[in-house]
């Protein structure tokens, strides 16, 4: 008998679990990022320093990579199986009433994956391995001046444009993904499901606008 890693329902369970973990991660990520908009770079640099030195966060980072991997690997498997399940497509297709973004989860996922790689190269890999980031000292402790790096990157027009587009597409992914994960986990209820859907929409709008406002505000005002 198949197990939770191979059955259709099991695969979706792992995906939605990992997806919800990523949903929480985005909240943490955004709250730290918003600090970069403050007048002084100190708060952001200190937060980034804390995130890269605290042992608990170091472990969480590995869990986060694992979460991304599980979500992505199963996302690809599920999507390929779904394409195989209909070898000949309809001539006239997709006139059924469905939520629009649910049809494009794989497409948005591909964009997010490309963006993720670029984004990691741009900040994470640069700060950690490539170098070229200035040092600053707060209370005598050495910090990377990541705020300066972020601000420099977001003064380049095409970088800002790429970020805004990619984040909008992340928003499309979240719009379907958030409520879909609850349904996948079996949480469907006449009263709570509309609440979950509304919460998903609010979450999606706040997260998307929150992330998008950072490059835009920096480009125009910093």
């Amino acid at each position, binding site marked *: 008998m198949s197990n939770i890693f191979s059955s259709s*329902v099991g695969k979706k369970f792992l995906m939605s679990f990992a997806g919800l973990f990523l949903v929480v991660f985005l909240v943490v990520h955004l709250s730290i990022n918003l600090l970069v908009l403050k007048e002084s770079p100190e708060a952001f640099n200190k937060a980034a320093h804390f995130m890269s030195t605290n042992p608990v966060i170091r472990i969480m980072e590995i869990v986060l990579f694992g979460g991304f991997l599980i979500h992505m690997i199963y996302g690809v498997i599920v999507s390929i199986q779904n394409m195989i399940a209909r070898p000949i497509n309809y001539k006239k297709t997709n006139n059924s009433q469905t939520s629009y973004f*649910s049809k494009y989860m794989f497409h948005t996922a591909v964009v997010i994956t490309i963006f993720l790689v670029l984004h990691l190269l741009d900040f994470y890999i640069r700060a950690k391995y490539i170098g070229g980031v200035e040092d600053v000292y707060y209370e005598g402790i050495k910090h990377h001046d990541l705020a300066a790096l972020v601000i420099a990157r977001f003064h380049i027009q095409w970088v800002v444009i790429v970020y805004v587009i990619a984040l909008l597409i992340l928003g499309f992914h979240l719009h*379907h993904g958030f409520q*879909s994960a609850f*349904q996948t986990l079996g949480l469907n209820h006449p009263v709570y499901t509309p609440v979950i859907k509304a919460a998903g929409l609010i979450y999606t709008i706040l997260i998307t606008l929150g992330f998008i406002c950072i490059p835009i505000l920096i480009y125009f005002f910093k």
Partner: protein
Amino acid sequence: MDFTLRIWRQENEQSKGRFEIYKITNVSADSSFLEMLDLLNQQLVDKFEMPICFDHDCREGICGACGLYINGRPHGPDDAITTCQLHMRKFKDGDTIVIEPWRARPFPIIKDLVVDRTALDKIIEAGGYISVNTGGVPDANEIPISKKNADIAMDAASCIGCGACVAACKNASAMLFVSAKISQFAMLPQGRIEAKERVKRMIDKMDELGFGNCTNTGACEAECPKEISLTHIARLNREYFAAKIS
């Protein structure tokens, strides 16, 4: 009313199919979609051409045999009906209507618009039953069941196994069908006894037959002639996890 029909023709499972274009005139607005096809077939037979094969049986919307993919929607442009309950007044005079068979790997084409839906029966054979001798008719209310649960089970049991959910789903997933068949037992005490085994076996069979994975797009619910709800899929998921954990 006059129509241009683009209909999928295919000799058998192996042969390569193609669309053929047919013109049909003087169709009554009150004729059903299948009657319109009967008319066309009569004209084809009169010309000594092969009539178009399509499935149908009751023509009352209860058996689930009929099933055509019409202008991009299973059972055509109306909600909560089967193809046999669709009427030509739902179209505009002069419309071009594209008619295709259900498309899914587990539904091989037998001929033209007729597909083999045995895969759905195989899922039922894997566990969609209660294996006890039922004996005579039991006394009413011998086993108390709440009205709420009885209604949910009854709603689920209204699935006629037409396969429109599979046809509508972009992933060719059979989850709505399977969830209806799971729910009709899961909500009743008689069904609880074998519930864990049943859900595991039916899901395994569904996967083995090559149906896709559900991504909650909801196209199935939108097209189901019996308005089976997505809540049954959530119940199926719960039943499956509960069965796997214990």
